[in-house]
């Protein structure tokens, strides 16, 4: 086996495999290294694959070929307190036809399929390979070493798609320490439920799927929860900022029970059978936490490059990851044509990222990170909303207050003028 490649891609996740596919299609000698026994064996996310033009372009009508669960037709945003739920449900017929706006997927199947597409184009996929560190020569990355194996693999260019804890980026000196304030931990339980029950319970037909986001659970911890419908299972989980989780003094699996035991959620998961429990870190530091993404001989893509953002309503990562993978591959193709693997050449990747929606969206919502660290967002405001709704609907023979007066009174009681003004400004800046 040749130990020298044009490009080595570390990690056969969505970013790595799509990069590998693009490179192999261009006729390059590309090696895809995966630490799992198959692609997807180590990968977990909430469960939503967002519409990604870069994927559609490389694999036209991919939705007819990929192992997808359901397309997302219904979006629900639910503000929760321990005994109330105020939800906003959005059903859109435009989300019910191709190109679909998003899909629910299961990663061991999806990632395995995508890596297989790269292999079909000629990429060499090597599983059971945990990369330890980059091989450096004269200040440039020239290859990688693999745990438990002698020797090293060499390439003109290495693409680090090794996930949120990118030891490659760290060891190449592209990033600092991993810190709790910029990372969230996601825990998820996959629950089996018959297809007919899911359709009935969530008011879905055919391949329609639902995405329900819960704000306010976990109570008192900065984070959120989700429930996505797969064909015959539900992906139920939560994401919490590590610093907030640590401060709570509670264990993730205990907090997770709060979600499963919430009266509104309990009804939705009734009778479902636990199939698999998983956990993963999520880069939640936003734009400011994006490390240096290129150096001599190496580019960093996907979660490894911190390409993920949340503004409380949108949570996107997989689409940013795949797009970055393609942009890095395009850059590698140019670099190899020019025979120049220097940082100066690979800076083109950063330029492409900056010009794409990836960095544009991350910049747009860069102030959301500050907003997402406002504790009141996770308990006081759902409480406030629930209080207003209760007073609107409650009938008890006492005279009513006008809606505006009611909202003002509740807001003053729960938050106070100073914080209310400060939070309004912060939320306004973060989202508008």
């Amino acid at each position, binding site marked *: 086996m040749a130990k020298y490649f044009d490009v080595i891609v570390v990690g056969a996740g969505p970013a790595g495999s799509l990069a590998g596919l693009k490179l192999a299609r261009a006729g390059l000698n590309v090696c895809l290294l995966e630490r799992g026994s198959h692609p997807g064996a180590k990968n977990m996310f909430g469960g939503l694959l967002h519409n990604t033009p870069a994927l559609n372009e490389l694999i036209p009508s991919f939705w007819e070929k990929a192992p997808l669960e359901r397309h997302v037709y219904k979006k629900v945003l639910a503000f929760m307190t321990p005994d109330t739920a105020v939800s906003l449900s959005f059903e859109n017929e435009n989300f019910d036809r191709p190109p679909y706006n998003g899909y629910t997927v299961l990663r061991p199947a999806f990632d395995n399929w995508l890596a297989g597409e790269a292999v079909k184009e000629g990429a060499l996929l090597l599983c059971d390979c945990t990369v330890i560190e980059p091989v450096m020569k004269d200040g440039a990355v020239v290859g990688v070493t693999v745990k438990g194996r002698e020797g090293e693999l060499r390439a003109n260019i290495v693409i680090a798609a090794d996930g949120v804890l990118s030891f490659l980026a760290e060891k190449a000196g592209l990033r600092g320490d991993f810190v709790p304030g910029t990372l969230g931990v996601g825990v998820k339980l996959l629950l089996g439920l018959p297809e007919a029950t899911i359709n009935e319970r969530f008011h879905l037909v055919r391949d329609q799927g639902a995405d329900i986001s819960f704000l306010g659970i976990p109570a008192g911890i900065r984070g959120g929860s989700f429930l996505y419908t797969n064909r015959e299972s539900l992906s139920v989980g939560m994401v919490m900022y590590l610093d907030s*989780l640590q401060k709570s003094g509670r264990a993730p699996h205990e907090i997770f029970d709060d979600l499963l035991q919430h009266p509104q959620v309990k009804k939705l998961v009734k009778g479902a059978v636990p*199939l698999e429990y*998983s956990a993963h870190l999520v880069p939640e530091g936003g734009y400011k936490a994006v490390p240096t993404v290129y150096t001599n001989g190496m580019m960093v893509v996907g979660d490894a490059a911190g390409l993920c953002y949340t503004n409380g309503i949108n949570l996107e990562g997989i689409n940013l990851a795949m797009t970055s993978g393609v942009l890095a591959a395009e850059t590698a193709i140019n670099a190899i044509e020019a025979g120049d693997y220097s940082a100066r050449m690979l800076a083109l990747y950063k330029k492409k990222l900056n010009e794409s929606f990836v960095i544009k969206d991350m910049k747009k919502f860069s102030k959301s990170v500050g907003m997402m660290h406002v504790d009141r967002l996770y308990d006081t405001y759902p409480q406030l909303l629930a209080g207003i709704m209760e007073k609107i609907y409650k009938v008890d023979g006492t005279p009513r207050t006008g809606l505006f007066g009611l909202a003002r009174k509740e807001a003053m009681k729960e938050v106070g003028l100073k914080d209310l003004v400060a939070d309004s400004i912060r939320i306004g800046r973060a989202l508008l």
Partner: protein
Amino acid sequence: MNIENLPQVTQFKTDEQPHIIIDKEVCRTCEHHACVMSCPANCYTWNEETGLLSVVYETCLECGTCYVVCDNKAIDWSYPRGGYGVNFRLT
């Protein structure tokens, strides 16, 4: 989620070489043992009487939370050897 049932719902292929090594002396004097409470798989146990921290690497979900929350740098954490460790089948 009864975390005791973890090995029944999630598949692991155990390596005889641990991928997590803790510095028990540093952990003895740690004030918070953040790893114990933060681990989603409940892998860490702190014994108040003996002053010993122990870790069960066999059911590690490889998220890395412990590594990030340990501000004493007492956890030597790496990904398991290729093919070993957690093996997601469905998620």
